[in-house]
C-alpha cells in the first residue's frame, strides 16, 4: 500500500512525536508513505476566513502533487482532513474556480483534476477502510489488554457528514472505537468524545477553550479512562499541552489523562517501544498508560 503523505504543519512543529511515531509505524504495517515535502499548509479553516479561494488554491496545490504521483493522499490531522474534503467539494462543484486555480498552478507545472478528484484520507480511515481491522489484528504483537482507552475525534473528521463521505462510509464516527477494541484495549466512551476540544479559540477566549478541554477530560477520567487517543494533533495540543491549565476548570480533582496520537496507540500494539514512539514526549505523563500495559 502506497500513499502520498501530508503530515501537516503541527506534526512538524509543536507535536513532533506524532510525525516520528507515524513514520515508525507505517513500514511496520507495510504502508509506504511518499511525503509531500514541498506541500503547503491547508489553511486549517483559518485562511478561508480571509479568502476562501486562496485556501482552495493552496489545497489544490497539495492535491496536484499527489495526483502527479498517482497516489491517494493520507493525512494525520482531523483538521487537515476536514479542510481538504471541503476544498475538494467546492472545486468539484465550481469548475470555473478550479480552472482559475489551475492557471496559477500551471506556472509550477502542476494541475489538479477536480472532477477526477483524489482519495484524501486520514490515517484512521486508511486503517479501517483500506488496511482492514482483521489485517491490523493479525499484526498485533502486544495486545493492549488492560488499557482503558477513550476516543477523541476532532470536529473536522466528523462534520459536516455529507462532505466527509458519510453517505458511503456511515460508520466513520465509530472508527476510533473499532480500532481501540481491535487492539485489545478496553473501550471507554463519554459524552464529549465528538465535541470540540476548544483549540480553535485558545488564543481568542482562553477560558472557554480550557473549559471545553476540562469538561471532556473530566468525563473521560470519571469513566475510568487511562488515556484518550486522537487522530488530530490540534486536539492533542489542547487536551495535552494545555491540560495543566485546564485542570482548574475540571470537575474532578487530580486531573491526569494522557493523550496518545493514533499511530502511538497502534505502535504500542505492534510491540514498538514507548520511547521510539515518543510516548514520553507529552506534557501529561504517559505513566498511566505504561502502568496499565505492564500490569
Amino acid at each position, binding site marked *: 500500500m502506497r500513499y502520498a503523505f501530508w503530515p501537516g*504543519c*503541527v506534526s*512538524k*512543529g*509543536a*507535536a*513532533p*512525536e506524532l510525525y516520528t511515531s507515524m513514520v515508525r509505524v507505517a513500514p511496520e504495517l507495510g504502508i509506504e508513505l511518499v511525503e509531500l*515535502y*514541498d*506541500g*503547503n*499548509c491547508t*489553511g*486549517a*479553516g*483559518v*485562511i*478561508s*476566513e*480571509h*479568502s*476562501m*479561494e*486562496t485556501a482552495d*488554491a*493552496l489545497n489544490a*496545490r497539495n492535491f496536484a502533487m499527489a495526483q502527479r504521483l498517482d497516489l491517494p493522499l493520507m493525512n494525520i490531522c482531523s483538521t487537515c482532513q*476536514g479542510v481538504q474534503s471541503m476544498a475538494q467539494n467546492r472545486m468539484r462543484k465550481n469548475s470555473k474556480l478550479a480552472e482559475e*486555480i489551475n492557471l*496559477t*498552478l500551471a*506556472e*509550477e507545472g502542476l494541475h489538479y483534476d477536480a472532477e477526477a478528484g483524489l482519495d484524501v484520507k486520514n490515517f484512521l480511515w486508511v486503517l479501517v477502510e483500506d488496511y482492514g481491522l482483521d489485517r491490523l489484528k493479525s499484526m498485533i504483537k502486544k495486545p493492549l489488554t488492560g488499557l482503558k482507552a477513550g476516543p477523541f475525534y476532532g*470536529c*473536522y473528521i*466528523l*462534520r*459536516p*457528514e455529507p462532505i466527509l463521505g458519510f453517505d458511503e462510509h456511515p460508520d466513520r464516527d465509530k472508527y476510533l472505537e473499532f480500532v481501540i477494541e481491535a487492539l485489545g484495549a478496553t473501550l471507554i466512551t463519554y459524552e464529549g468524545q465528538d*465535541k*470540540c476540544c476548544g483549540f*480553535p*479559540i485558545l*488564543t*481568542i*477566549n482562553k*477560558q*472557554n*477553550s480550557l*473549559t*471545553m478541554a476540562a*469538561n471532556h477530560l473530566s468525563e473521560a477520567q470519571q469513566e475510568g479512562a487511562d488515556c484518550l487517543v486522537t487522530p488530530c494533533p490540534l486536539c492533542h495540543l489542547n487536551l495535552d*499541552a*494545555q491540560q*495543566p491549565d485546564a485542570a482548574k476548570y475540571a470537575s474532578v480533582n487530580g486531573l491526569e489523562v494522557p493523550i496518545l496520537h493514533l499511530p502511538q496507540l497502534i505502535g504500542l500494539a505492534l510491540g514498538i517501544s514507548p520511547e521510539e514512539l*515518543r510516548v514520553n*514526549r*507529552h*506534557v501529561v505523563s504517559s505513566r498511566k498508560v505504561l502502568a496499565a500495559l505492564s500490569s
Partner: protein
Amino acid sequence: MQVKLKVKRFDPESGEEPYYQQYSVEMPETATVLDALIEVREYHDGSLSLRCSCRSAICGSCAMRINGRARLACKTSVRSLAEEGEEILVEPAGNMPTIKDLVADMAPFWDKVRAVKPWLQPSGPPPEREYVVPNEAMQALGEVMNCIMCGACVSDCTSLEVDKTFLGPAALAKAWRFVGDPRDAQDLSRLREYSEPSGIWDCTRCNICVQVCPKDVKPMDQILKLRAAAVHEGIRNNNGSRHTLAFVELVNANGRLDEFRLPIFTEGKFNIIGQLSYLPSAPRMIRSGKMPPVFPHKISGVKHVKRIFKQFGEREPGPAKLVSAGGH
C-alpha cells in the same frame, strides 16, 4: 410498529429532580417522533408537556434532543432512528432552561436574536416605491432566509455549552442576513458590535450547528462570512481578527504554519503584556520537546505559495454584497 420512548421529565414546580420515563405506543411505520409523543400525551399520559404546531417542519416549535442530537420531532421518523423495540431517547433542547418536560424556555434565544438588531437599517430617505434588489444578492442570502428559529443549532452549540453569553449560531446567522443585505447601510457598526467578546470570534467552528440544522441554514458558514467581512473592513482590535491575519501572513512567508509566531502576532505584535501570558506554558513545552522552532522551516516552493496569495488573497470576501441596491 411498537415505538419505545424514553422521555426526560421535569417539572420545576414539583420540587423533584428530573427523571426519565418510558412509554411504549403502537404507531404506523411512517410515524414521526412527534406523532409518537402526541400519541403518548393524548392517550397515555396527559401530564407530558411538549410544544408543537405545524407538524411540517415549518414553524420550528418542536426542536428537541432526540438520541442526543437536536432535531425537529416532526421531521424525524421513528424508523430512521430505531428498529422495532429499540428505545428512542427524547430530551428537551440543550443550552436553554427547561420550562417543563420537553418545553425549553426560548427567552434567552430571542434576547440574543434581538441583540444583533435583526431589522433593516437603510440610509437616506426611503424610495418612493419598494427597494429593488437584484436576484443574485438575495440568492446569496437564501441559506439564512431559510431559518425557522427553531433553536436546534443553539441547543447543541459547543461554545454556548461553556459560555451562556455567546451570541450563538442562530443570532449570528441572522446578523449575516443584514450585513449581507444590499439595502442595509450599517455594515461597519454591525460588524464592530459583532466583533466584541461573545460575538463572531467565540465560535469554535465545530460544525455542529451545520450538522443539526433542519433547514440547511449552515449557521457556522454565515459566522465565517461575518469574520471575513470584519477582517476586510479592517476591524482588527481583537485576537480573532489578528489570529486570522497572522495565520495568513505566516503561511504566506513560509508555506507552512509558524506556530512560534502565531500566538505572539495574535496578541498584537507590540502587545508585550499579552505576549507574556504565553510564558508560563513555555517551560513545559520545552521540557517535553514540543516548543515550536523559533526559525520555522520554509518549504522550497514558497514562491509558488506567495503567487497563490497574490492571485487570490486580495479579493473581497464573497459572497458579500454582490450588487448595490437601487431604489426607484
